């Protein structure tokens, strides 16, 4: 084996070790986060979700996109919440833990993939969603943005925000709306 081959092998071995360690660390981190999330009862997470939709999205229109790229431990999220309170976020004292639990639980993940196999199902879902839009949203909003999917933020956040502001959307309707709005092609 030549010196060059030895060097290549050593580099590869080093790369394997680094990747393995990184994967292990990431696994531990996500385990810690998910443990924290599991420790919080669903009611606490729901409370956190509501608070996030009332407080955070006033500035962070694209919050779910942020959450997809910003993964943190419970302590890190709490620290972020403290910083945002410092910036003026109006959070009630009993919401600090709830928001921490919600953010730690992992949110904003997974978008519908769509595809040919689901074409018929998709058409039916689109019809249903269009009906919901007409029924629940059109009284206040121009639906052009929904039709062209040109929302400034992500639909998960926007729909939740509308619900907190009084839109009478049932959980099933909410699901259908978000599936439809996030699944449409740009």
């Amino acid at each position, binding site marked *: 084996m030549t010196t060059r081959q030895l060097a290549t092998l050593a580099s590869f071995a080093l790369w394997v070790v680094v990747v393995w360690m990184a994967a292990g660390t990431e696994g531990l981190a996500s385990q810690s986060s998910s443990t924290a999330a599991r420790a919080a009862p669903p009611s606490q997470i729901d409370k956190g979700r509501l608070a996030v939709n*009332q*407080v955070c999205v*006033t*500035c*962070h229109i*694209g919050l779910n*996109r*942020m959450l*997809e*790229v*910003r993964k943190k431990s419970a302590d890190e999220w709490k*620290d972020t*919440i*403290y*910083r945002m*309170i*410092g*910036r*003026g*976020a*109006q*959070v*009630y*004292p009993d*919401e*600090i833990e709830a928001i921490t639990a919600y953010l730690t639980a992992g949110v904003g993940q997974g978008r519908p993939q769509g595809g040919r196999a689901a074409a018929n199902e998709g058409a039916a879902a689109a019809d249903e969603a269009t009906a919901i839009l007409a029924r629940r949203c059109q009284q*206040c909003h121009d639906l052009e943005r929904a039709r062209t999917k040109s929302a400034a933020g992500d639909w998960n956040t926007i729909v939740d925000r509308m619900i907190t*502001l*009084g839109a009478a959307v049932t959980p099933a309707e909410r699901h259908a709306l978000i599936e439809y709005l996030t699944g449409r092609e740009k």
Partner: protein
Amino acid sequence: MEPDRKPTEPPRETASGGASPVSRREFLTATAATGIAFGAGPAVSAEVQEPPAAGQGTPQASASRPLPITDSFEMYEGTAAGAVLAQLRAAGVRMLFHTNTSGFMPFWEAIDRAGDVQVINVPHEGIAVAAAQGYAMASRSLGFFFGSGAGVGNSMSNLYCAWKDRVPMLVTFSGGELSEQGKDGFESWDDHLRPTESFTRWTASLLTDEMAEIIRRAIQFAVGPPSGPVTLAWGEANPGERVRTRIDTIDLTKARQMFRASPDAIQQAARWLVEAERPMIVVGPEVAEDGATAELLALAEKLSIPVTDTEDDLYANFPTDHALYMGPLRALRYPRQADLVIGFGESFKRRRPQAGTTAIHVSHDSTLLGKVYPVDLAIASDVRLAIRDLSDAIDGLLTRDRLSRMRSTRLAEVSKVSAQFKASADIAFKAMFDRSPVTWERVGYELERVLDKNAVVVPELGTQTYKILRQLKFGGENKLRFGRTVGSALGWGVGASLGVNLALPDRQVVALQGDGGFLFGQSEALWSISRYQAPMLIVIMNNHSYNESRARNMNNGGPLFEAGKDYNGYLGDPEVDFAKIAEAYSLRGEKVRTASELAPALQRSLRSMRDGKAVLLDIEVEGDGPDLGQGNWYQRYSIADIQRKARA
């Protein structure tokens, strides 16, 4: 502002041979006493005769029923440049801001003869304009700048800020001669004030025989409302030529136009206000501009209406430690769904009233009413008069008992919510109290502990501003705040702070700067701060980055976020020693690295300020926003390396 000179006091220039000054009141009195027909004044020529005011048919009538005539005029004779100064002095202007140029000798001579005018030299047109703005805001008078036509470009950024902030100023430049058109001549270009037109209330040329009149007109444009900067070119005038012209005494407190809303509109607004269950007041800069802060507080307290403001608010219009103050509109969570929003001097341009909310917009700028978003009731009025009228109308609609019940019920609810938000803020603050690098909140906390109650703070910070400002008490009897400029163009704050300190020499003035903002060419302001011994405190919140841009660019991820590459944000290479910059200007500079160093450093700063020397505190503060992993990455480039390689 009252002019220092009484109307009968001769202007300095005319004392050496000019015509006698004659006030309008004296003129009318004299003609009445002698029975001479109106218009035949002995000491003034026909060109200065005043038409009779309404009801003044004869001199006898005016003598028997004297009308409240408060204006006066003087005849001035001297240089044209002297006429400009005389008109400024007659408007009470005694402080002028200047950046180096030649060509103003007749003006300097007039200044020297006047003897009561202070010129503040500032080594950059942009900083000088910011200083003039700071002076105008804090003195509630007029800012005046004169400088080179070649410096128009330098001035533009802060001229834009002054325009966004609606601050009355006359910004004057040499050059602009029509005879130079098309020549591409020395330091000239065609129509040289045209670039300023977007940022001014009026743009004009001074003319030799009309110097004083154009200044008077410019002042009217500047004070508005809406108020704002006016740019003037000296080029068409011959400042050294002798002129004889009329100088009008101008009381700047009265020069501003005031108008009142129709009683019907006020009644409608009052009815809606008393009928609303969850009303909310949004305040904007016109409250301070119209001197309406006390009236606003009284109205809010009368009905216990929660008050909010916007990030566009240049001033603290409402006491930030008051139970009814709910924080900035952007983050507002209470009331959840206001059924009525009434905006006083705020443009609704940042956030429209929610659907289903009745909106009333009160503004002295009729061009803003209903412009950005439709409102249900638009009231054009001086804001102070509108609040007073509204308050009176409410008194007429409610019995004292009902008013009292409404007030106490709502106050209990608002206070409860305010207390909870404060409790959360305290939890967050305590959790981060001892951190090093120092938190922004801690800096605000320590400043609040040591500064005078009536200190003045001039912030120029980014999205983390509120972290520090919420620890300080502003508005009402508390501290004054000027800034951040609504224009947000960096490079404004230190110059503006100097102007504020010149206007309010008895107060502590604190400039709050980011390291990035200070690097926008602001160190030159330290020269003037040192020259004029302004004992200010300049705090540099040093996080070695343009943190606001970094957060905005990186918050939503993307390939550059994944790679940890921020092309713009990192400022740490080179590490700037801001304290040494201050020392280079003979000021005191100090570096603060940890939380425990902060309070003693502030005490030392206050001692220095008391001794008359400004201090620059360079405080290592924590960053915020997304963790980039390699936060100190930047796109490296080295000319030295290129040279080395070329030599190798």
